[in-house]
């Protein structure tokens, strides 16, 4: 058995799992985080996408042991009690998800993009989502939603900066 300790959505969690367990199985079966989905189990479809140390990865291709000591963000970690994440809000308002199965993976791939690039153009967004297959939507509304979310995040950013400054001062 491998003993694993990792930081998931800001919380430290531990688990003891058979060594061949993938990160996807760890999340779904051991940690009750069923947001990441099993679509193909071989890294072709992206439904299992999560963010590990800032990078969007296919969790079905990563062993749980390889995630030991890392920071993982899953879909469950985006919204707070009071607010949705701007990407989730934009996806809802623009009707970007239909059956929703690819949704968590796409939203996290978009978040990984927007964390690095706060004003991506359409080609860059398409590139970032290229690893996530969607059969229902044709991707069009998702791309629009990511652009809307990028705008929201840019508008929030200066307020966060000034908030941080006032915290430092007090």
């Amino acid at each position, binding site marked *: 058995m491998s003993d694993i300790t990792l930081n998931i959505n800001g919380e430290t969690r531990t688990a003891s799992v058979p060594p061949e367990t993938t990160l996807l199985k760890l999340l779904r079966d051991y940690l009750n985080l069923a947001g990441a989905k099993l679509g193909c189990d071989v890294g072709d479809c992206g439904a299992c996408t999560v963010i590990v140390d800032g990078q969007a990865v296919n969790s079905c291709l990563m062993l749980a042991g390889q995630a030991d000591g890392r920071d993982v963000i899953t879909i469950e970690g985006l919204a707070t009690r009071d607010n949705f994440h701007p990407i989730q809000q934009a996806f809802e308002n623009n009707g970007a*998800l239909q059956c929703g199965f690819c949704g968590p993976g796409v939203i996290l791939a978009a978040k990984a993009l927007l964390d690095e690039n706060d004003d991506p153009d359409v080609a860059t967004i398409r590139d970032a989502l290229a690893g996530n297959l969607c059969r229902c939507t044709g991707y069009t509304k998702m791309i629009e939603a990511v652009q809307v979310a990028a705008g929201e995040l840019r508008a929030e950013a200066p307020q966060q900066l000034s908030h941080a400054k006032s915290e430092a001062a007090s």
Partner: protein
Amino acid sequence: MSDEEKVLEREKVHLDTALRDPEIDLRLPAVVPREPYPIETLVPEARQQTRAVGQRATRQDGRLHGLGQTKYIDDMSFPGMLYARIKRAGIASARIKSIDTSAAEAIPGVMAVLTGDEIPVNSFGPSLQDQPVLCAEQVFHAGDGVAAVAAITEQIAEEAIDKIVVEYEPLPAIFDPVEAMNEDAHKVHAPGSNIYATKAIRKGDVDKGFAESDHIFEDRFTTQMIEHVSLEPHAAIADWDANGRVTIWATIGRITLARADIARTLSMPMSRIRIIGTVVGGNFGGKNEITQEPALALLSKKAGRPVKGVYTRGEEFTSTTTRHPIVMDYKTGVSNEGKILARKVRLVLDGGAYCSWSETTLGKACILSPGPYNIDNVVAEAFVVYTNKTMTGAMRGFGAPQVCFAYESQMDDIATKLGMNPLDIRLLNAFHEGSSSPTGQVLHSVVVKESLETASARFRWQEALT
């Protein structure tokens, strides 16, 4: 504020008294009366509008999707639940000589094993009941199921099906639908003919129409086998209670048909079957009939525990329905002005190993094949043929995309030959309000020309041509 007060403040629920107050007018600023259904309104408030039709209302389930809160079948689990796997034939056409499940049964953790001969009525299908739940005597395509196992983990179930030994006697096989139409071709479901359904439409006199035509075009078009690839694989969970009632959660788009099929295959009354559909992660036609549900129900009955089965991505390709490949022969006669005078269509659909939704596909493809055009003289003949490949069934369009590819490709060829604008030749021939369809139906609410004109204007078609 004390901590308790802060919690209460956050938890406060505000009663919405608006529902009971007649004085409040809840409509947004009035829309011009001539347009009964407002088209564009503010999205977040759209769900609050009392003229609900025409609103860009957001989806409540869309919110849950974005939060990852939607429960698909694979996200559900029950205490004591087992995992099922189905052994696939791997051979396209063979007689089953024997199935030995003893090695699988001996594996610790395997709680139930099922073979086709244990199924009370081992056949199902929306029109022809030619598909077995699990093959007992013969396999008809490489993805056919021959045995099923329920075990305490997926890994053990996977190991168990590998240990099941099946002895096959290979039989001849046929893969090309046109070849399969010959009387001396191998009969997939002997002794019946490989052509398992036909459809014909005859209107007017095509020979006369061709004789009067200035130009005749003859072309053959073919399309490929396609898989739905819904992101969520087929999944189901079966569970019994002590009153002999089975509950099945399934990714099926037609729960009443599913209940009828389970009742038939398991020889049970319908009142003892409950089918619950959750949110399906994409259907597109591939989840409109039962697949593994009867097998899961029987495994659950044998093991006395809930059983979950989720198809692998590979099984989605090998063992679920696909889109019919069609060989389409089109012969069209036109006048010099571009008016279609006669059209003769012959369609040969590759019907796969089982009928599934082929009769419906056949019918629709045949009816739609002349295109949305006023043609006085039409003959359309369609055949669907068994082959030893994955069964073909319902998929978004039921044959329409295939025939549209054919008749619209030919239309542009005709336009080129006659030196006409592809838009004009279509406007000349298109249905209008009150047109008669190939089956003699008077059509209403016809907007073919409007759609041609709207798309052309948006695309800036006329400018693009110059």
